[in-house]
């Protein structure tokens, strides 16, 4: 049997990878992908704890997190498309000045 700890450690590692991705990458789409990695790490924690405590709540929260992640990915990508049309670049540093 795999103890709960192992799932938590794995989730922590994935969350760290996601965070590092958000900070280090300079491509808007990869930043959004890293956010998805973070959300998945959180989902794993929820499901692991839900199983450990024997309640369905963990899985239900995961259901809502997935829905919110889908909505956020859709709107985020629409923003990326709109930004790309103006600057022809996906590098967040090209959007550093306030002038549109």
């Amino acid at each position, binding site marked *: 049997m795999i103890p709960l*700890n192992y799932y938590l450690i*794995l989730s922590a590692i*994935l969350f760290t990878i996601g965070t590092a991705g958000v900070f280090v990458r300079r491509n808007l*789409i990869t930043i959004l*992908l890293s956010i998805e990695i973070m959300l*998945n790490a959180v989902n794993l924690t929820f499901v692991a704890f839900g199983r450990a*405590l024997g309640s369905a709540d963990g899985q239900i929260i995961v259901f809502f997190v997935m829905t919110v992640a889908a909505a*956020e990915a859709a709107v985020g990508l629409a923003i990326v498309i709109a930004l790309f049309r103006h600057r022809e*670049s*996906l590098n967040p540093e090209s959007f550093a000045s306030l002038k549109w």
Partner: protein
Amino acid sequence: MTEALAFYGFAAIAVVASLLVIAQRNPIYSVLLLIASFGALSGLYVLLEAPFVAVIQIIVYAGAIMVLFLFVVMLLNAPHEDTEYDERVHPLLRPGPMKFGAGLALLLIAELWWALGRSGDSGSFPAGAVASVGAIGRSLFTDYAFAFEVTSILILVAMVGAVVLARRDPAEQRISPLAVPENLEEEARVASSFGAGGPAPTENRP
């Protein structure tokens, strides 16, 4: 034994795929590797006896959200990142936010290592405490009914927002080479009055 093997296998795939996602230059490969990572996570959910979450992870994340990402990457023809700068300078030495971000990630790793090393033996899961799909459904529609309805409004808002944000502004329509000239009717009249061999073609006809 098979469970341990499955756990380590899926965990390794998830971690390696996620690392490659943030290390890849080509955005399409990043998206595909993330799909592999989601597949591994789905396997982990099956190990945690949550088959419903495992399957909706594939349906929603790997099957819908990632398709959206893939479409956007393809339609934007997303350029690769600038690699010379990345290869010359290590993330911890770059100026500004990147140094801060990389340093923060390292700090996070160290902190997690310390915290999880101190957590002690949490023991294995209690047996027989598995929530069936029916129980999830019942709970979802009674205890969490309000959140469920609000989620539907959230998705509607996201849909409308995405369509509005990604819409091309009609004022900036690019002129295509096959654009119809404004004085088409006049030209047609002139051409027909001349019979065969009308006036010289205008410049924006191919």
